[in-house]
């Protein structure tokens, strides 16, 4: 692998993160509720008091470079400010509490969706035009057209409210005392099942559509015809000749998709009241808790930039033709 390519990609990622921080800074300045503006609405506040407040918060200094430098410096130290709602709690602490439920839900969801979506897409593409292709592709298209939260609502209605197989909300049963860790895990898993199924179903549609068209493209290549002409078994042609190349676009898709997955994450968590970053986002939005919103935006966008970087690097290993 050429080190130059890697360096260029890392450079781009760093620039993107820099831009993100600046964007966050600019948005923050545009947000309502600056201390001096709020104070200024009260006619009894003297000019000296406003001036003192401005000095205390550093608002008397020029926006660029002083305020920007101060902002970047505090970000670099992991200081994302303080939440309005969770009084006194730093944004970093608030985020840290909520990050794991989301990582588990979406990590597992992605994993299931990749395995199922790729297999389904590969199979329907391989048997193109057959009955399974029609059903599989139709189902994928419908899943693709359905917002995540709607899938969640349907699952909730059917399996939690209707059949009563799963709990309707939360991550654990409130007030439950567990007799053993096994019971606790079982309770956790029963809460996880429906949100996880929602995330996986939402992603499977997309992945299988892309995988199917990728397989169809690959099967048209001449080396596949050659392999078939040599008398290699159908299954081996698919597994050893078509799949590896057809998988390539998936690597990019999965990384690029992460940004959209996050949008889905937010709504799925709301439907099931899953205590992750998604419900935190909606609560912060409703309470106009801007520092938390900004922290979430920074955290998520930096993760997506990293995911893209990893995908770019992996692509180099997967596809020897990439020498950019």
């Amino acid at each position: 692998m050429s080190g130059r390519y890697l360096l260029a990609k890392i450079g781009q990622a760093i620039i993107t993160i820099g831009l993100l921080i600046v964007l966050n800074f600019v948005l923050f300045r545009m947000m309502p509720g600056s201390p001096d503006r709020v104070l200024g609405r009260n006619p009894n506040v003297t000019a000296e008091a406003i001036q003192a407040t401005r000095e205390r918060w550093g608002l008397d200094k020029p926006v660029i470079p002083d305020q920007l430098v101060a902002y970047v410096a505090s970000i670099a130290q992991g200081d994302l400010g303080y939440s309005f709602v969770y009084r006194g709690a730093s944004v970093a602490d608030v985020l840290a509490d909520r990050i794991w439920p989301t990582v588990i839900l979406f990590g597992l969801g992605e994993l299931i969706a990749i395995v199922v979506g790729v297999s389904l897409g590969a199979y329907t593409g391989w048997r193109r035009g057959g009955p399974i292709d029609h059903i599989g592709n139709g189902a994928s298209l419908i899943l693709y057209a359905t917002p995540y939260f709607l899938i969640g609502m349907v699952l909730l209605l059917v399996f939690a409210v209707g059949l009563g197989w799963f709990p309707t909300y939360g991550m654990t049963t409130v007030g439950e005392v567990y007799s053993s860790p096994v019971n606790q895990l079982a309770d956790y898993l029963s809460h996880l099942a429906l949100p996880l199924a929602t995330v996986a179903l939402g992603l499977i549609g997309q992945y299988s559509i892309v995988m199917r068209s990728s397989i169809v493209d690959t099967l048209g290549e001449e080396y596949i015809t050659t392999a078939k002409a040599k008398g290699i078994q159908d299954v081996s042609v698919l597994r050893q000749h078509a799949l590896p190349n057809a998988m390539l676009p998936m690597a990019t898709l999965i990384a690029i998709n992460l940004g959209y997955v996050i949008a889905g994450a937010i709504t799925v968590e709301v439907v099931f009241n899953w205590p992750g970053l998604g419900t935190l986002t909606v609560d912060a939005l409703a309470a106009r808790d801007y520092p938390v919103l900004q922290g979430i935006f920074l955290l998520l966008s930096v993760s997506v930039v990293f995911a893209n970087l990893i995908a770019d690097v992996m692509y180099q290993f997967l596809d020897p033709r990439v020498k950019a």
Partner: protein
Amino acid sequence: MTTPAIASPGVAVSRPRGRLSRAWAVLRQVLRRRSGAIGIAILVFFTFVALFPDLLVGPLETAVTATGPSMAPPQPGYPFGTDELGRSILNLTVHGARISMIIGLLATIVTVLFGVVIGIVSGFVGGRTDAVLMRITDFFLVIPTFVLALILAPVISELFGTEGEILGVRITLLVIVVVIGITSWSSTARIIRSQTLSLKERAFVDRARVIGASPMHMMSRHILINVTDLIVANTVLVFAGAVLTETTLAFIGLGDPFAPSWGQILNSAQEAGAPGLGAWWYMAPPGASIVLVVLAFTLVGNVLDEILNPRLRGRQ
């Protein structure tokens, strides 16, 4: 696949008089495929509903004018049941069609306009302009635009206020339009740019340059006309995405309760605890409408892409 001659751009397109008849020809081709015909039928149905909601179910019911029982399942007079305020779900869903479709349409116009202008300028002008514009585009491609939308929405509301209307559309809805536009133009710009790059090298652009055409003229009369096919196919797919994004934004509470889109109705259902109460009738009509419309746009978009996209043509 039997591809009639009309599907080759540059031949029919360069004759302005043939443009309308070519559009008809493309539409006929779309209708000839089953998925295209199904998609068009669904879209015609929902366009009709969006255009004449008052004819179908009377004016939009509000908390004041609602007459039905609270959270009642489907029954005579209320074929889709009622919500917690006693409004007919049928009435809300039909009116929601207009709001969802208008927001989708406006957001699509904003997105495509941004994407096409930036794509063509970037590809045609090239050099440093191209480099800067593409860095910005890549930036918007990578960042999770939905989360950005969440932060932008309150900022824009704060800047422009939440009251009042522009051209009969409430400002709160326009905020959603602007947010979708700002955050989703980048992939359109990428697609248009790459096509522009290849068109720029064609002989007819060179000829225009030699006889002294200005860059503005070349971009608008030679490049733009030849990327129209791509724009059309892309626009339909962007529409599907815009409806989905609007639905999601409205669902998490950025919609306008006084102008309920389908996403907004689902948000009210969630807030009223409809899923836990088993009130399926509250969610099924707006939910099914969203799925049908997005599915229809996706089907038509894919068919158009196959017919019009020079890269995919002949793959079927």
